[in-house]
């Protein structure tokens, strides 16, 4: 069982990290360049970080970037690791990691639903959660929720309402 500091030392020795941060006890966040990410995840998997809890995404619209966050967990170190990388928002393309974790193909489909990011190598990009969606993906920051709701649904009218 490694402590947080031991793990950071190990990662700095073996991997090419952009940055790392100890967020709190048992919780570390590390950042990779795009090209380094898959090999980095591969290495982490060999270091007992075998559990991919989820893949999450953040839309940094001012920086024109999407941030992908891979949440890993090790049952031996008992440490949660957030592995982050930022991709171009315009092209919004990244590589799949379904060969490392089979479950990733569903997380990637989910992200494709809500952020419109394509994962090359993952062929099945059908809608997973949404149905018949033909607007821009709803979790993007430039999706105007209120405008869409006004257009699609009618508000209930009450007596005495102006």
């Amino acid at each position, binding site marked *: 069982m490694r402590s947080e500091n031991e793990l950071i030392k190990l990662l700095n020795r073996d991997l090419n990290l952009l940055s790392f941060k100890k967020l709190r006890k048992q919780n570390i966040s590390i950042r990779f360049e795009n090209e380094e990410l898959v090999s980095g995840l591969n290495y982490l998997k060999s270091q007992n970080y075998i559990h991919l809890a989820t893949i999450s995404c953040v839309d940094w619209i001012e920086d024109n970037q999407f941030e992908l966050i891979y949440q890993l967990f090790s049952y031996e170190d008992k440490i949660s690791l957030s592995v982050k990388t930022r991709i171009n928002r315009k092209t919004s393309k990244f590589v799949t990691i379904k060969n490392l974790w089979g479950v990733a193909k569903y997380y990637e489909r989910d992200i494709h639903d809500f952020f419109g990011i394509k994962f090359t190598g993952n062929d099945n990009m059908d809608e997973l959660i*949404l*149905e*018949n969606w033909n607007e821009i993906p709803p979790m993007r920051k430039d999706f105007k929720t209120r405008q*869409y*709701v006004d257009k699609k649904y*009618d*508000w*209930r009218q009450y007596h005495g309402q102006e």
Partner: protein
Amino acid sequence: MNNKYESNKWQEVINWVQTRSLFMLHYCTGCGAIELPPTMTSRYDMSRFGIGPAATPRQADILLITGYLSTKTLRRVIYTYEQMQNPKFVMGFGSCTINGGMYWDSYNTIKQLDKYIPVDLYIAGCMPRPEAILEGFLKLKEKIETGSADGYKKYNKEYEKYKKNQEKVLGEVKRRQ
């Protein structure tokens, strides 16, 4: 039943009998589902009012929509509703079915259930307590007995209107009957 008077009397008897045995299908994707176990079981015991849970749409009289419906689940509710046999009654449960509730500005949830299927009775609240649900059931029984719970007739009569509203939010709705 050519005689109008006779037919009305007969209908009254049918209505009265109907209120004595109601089977409820509860559509539980909203959080309202959590109020139903105490309503059904020994704490509040709705079977003392002659209402019990049903297993499938074809065996049910009441469709209880507990909470919000996304466009994806609305499609399934329409399938369910159209599978049920007449006479059938719909109860909207919680403020989400009335005006969207806390999902009032969500891009993916409907705001008024009665635009898509006819609703005979709404139970307001977020969440309604089991007492409120039982009160709603008693009110529905009253409406059935007086013959004013006629949503299913309205659905047949104004089918085009409902269909138009449904297709506005869902696109094509495949009817499976």
